[in-house]
């Protein structure tokens, strides 16, 4: 009973292949960046779907990795605000990769907060379904033509979009982070002080 085949040829990192891939992406798309080993394409909102179709067909990026969003804002209720002022907007990120190499592309587009809607990728990659539902409930982004745009994790009657920077982390309001303030003294300490005073 032998149903496994061992991949005989040892694959090692091929740097020249990777450079070739990056060059081909950079020559095909105008607005790209390559920092910290991460290739990112900035695309216009209107060509969001077409870009993914091209990447899937022409660049063999058939593996749908993930999709998510970023809330860019200067006034934040949780965490630190960006050091340099940013234009308040949503950035949609998607990640596609190949299944025969380490090549990977992050696509990014920007949508306004007032009109937070974008075409759904479900027709190109069926796997985008759950990722878009998550972005919908966490950021309030409307994905047009999505087959089932309902909440994924949160209860149906939940109000608010938790990953927005304007959404407060309630636990921090109720109980401050222990690292921020000195820990209160133990009850025994105060009793001792009273006894000494009396």
């Amino acid at each position: 009973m032998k149903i496994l085949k061992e991949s005989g040829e040892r694959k090692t990192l091929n740097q020249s292949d990777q450079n070739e891939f990056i060059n081909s992406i950079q020559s095909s798309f105008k607005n790209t960046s390559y920092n910290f080993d991460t290739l990112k394409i900035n695309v216009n909102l209107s060509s969001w779907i077409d870009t993914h179709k091209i990447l899937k067909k022409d660049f063999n990026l058939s593996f749908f990795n993930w999709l998510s969003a970023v809330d860019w804002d200067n006034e934040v209720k949780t965490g630190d605000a960006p050091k340099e002022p940013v234009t308040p907007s949503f950035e949609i990120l998607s990640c596609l990769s190949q299944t025969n190499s380490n090549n990977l592309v992050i696509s990014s587009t920007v949508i306004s907060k007032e009109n937070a809607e974008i075409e759904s990728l479900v027709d190109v990659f069926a796997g985008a379904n759950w990722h878009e539902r998550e972005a919908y409930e966490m950021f309030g982004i409307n994905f047009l033509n999505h087959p089932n745009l309902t909440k994924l994790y949160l209860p149906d009657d939940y109000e608010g979009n938790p990953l927005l920077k304007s959404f407060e982390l309630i636990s921090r309001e109720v109980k401050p982070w222990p690292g921020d303030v000195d820990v209160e003294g133990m009850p025994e300490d105060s009793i001792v002080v009273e006894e000494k005073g009396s």
Partner: protein
Amino acid sequence: MSQTMDPNNMPILSEASVSVEIETEDMTLNIGPQHPSTHGVLRLVAKVNGEKISSVEPVLGYMHRGYEKLAEVRTYPQVTTLVNRIDWVSGFANEIPFIAGAEKLMEIEVPERAQYIRLILTEMARISSHFVFNGAFPLEIGALTPIFLAMEDRERVLDLLESVTGGRFHPNFNRIGGVKPVAGAGPTTKKDIQDLPAGFYHDTKVAMEKVLKAVDTFEDLIGGNEVFQARTKKVGVLTKEVAEEYGVSGPILRASGVEFDLRKQSDYLPYDKFDFEIPIGENGDCFDRWSVRTSEMRESAKIILQAIEDMPSGPIQAKVPKVIKVPKGQTYVRAENPKGEMGYYIISEGGLGPYRLKIRTASFSNISILPIMLEGALLPDLIAIMGSLDFVLGDVDR
């Protein structure tokens, strides 16, 4: 009974309508969120027509803890505590891509010895995760024995993990630039390992030999079992095209015949220094998924045995500032975890913590395939298919 019946109110039988064709409606069957085979709290709303499933809708969120939000109010060293708890069956492996991402943004070169320790412990996490699978999967489809064998063998590996990190499931052992310093740790030689517990070299060798034996036993006991074969062969076949479209990764993708393993293709840990094979399945059914994972345990043990032999000496921590501040930048670092590809997209704005941390987990994408795989399947196969996907709800809900 006839005494109490009022003869005036008796139903008139001739008026009762009997339809010749019996029409049946699909029954809605709720599976979970407390069902043992759901590995946590997954709920499936299945529409069944007799024994046949016509559609399935997974309901998630019973364990959603909001780690992406929590990471925004924590500093970088604090995030490793959170990510341990994503896939708790292999907690150590979750830390690696996050730490590697932060190191990439800070442009820190990690000492070789620290990388070797990380690699050994990651592979131990993989072995312990696959032990759980080898116990739980046969259990769900009716074989009780393997879980006792698997848990005993896993304990040996967890003991080793505990002896190094202090934690069995949530080690929180990685530091930015290296691994957790131990009192008295310094430049060490191969045989005189100071930053690893005394006897680690010997104990690991013994444990790995036992792992190799356990794998042989499992292949015989589980894989050779006719009932197991009947329940898993040609059940839940997943084609590689569908798997890629849904982002299904790890052993499930490899069982469908895709030769993709980030340990070979990426350089997040020095895997290129060791000889090991990537098991690939042919049919993409439940049996192949079991078989790929079981063979992977053997390869992992082989990697650990080689790494222990070649263990370089030297420091285990690179020089880092006292207060970790990650410069502005964005990066995506991914790793081959026991359950599949895990990655972190870190957006740093130069602060003490990430501005946004997107966590890509394997099980989330892996179970998004459930509605497709279960459509038209038989109800008993549902348990086999779910078991073969080997997901953990903490990894799905984050």
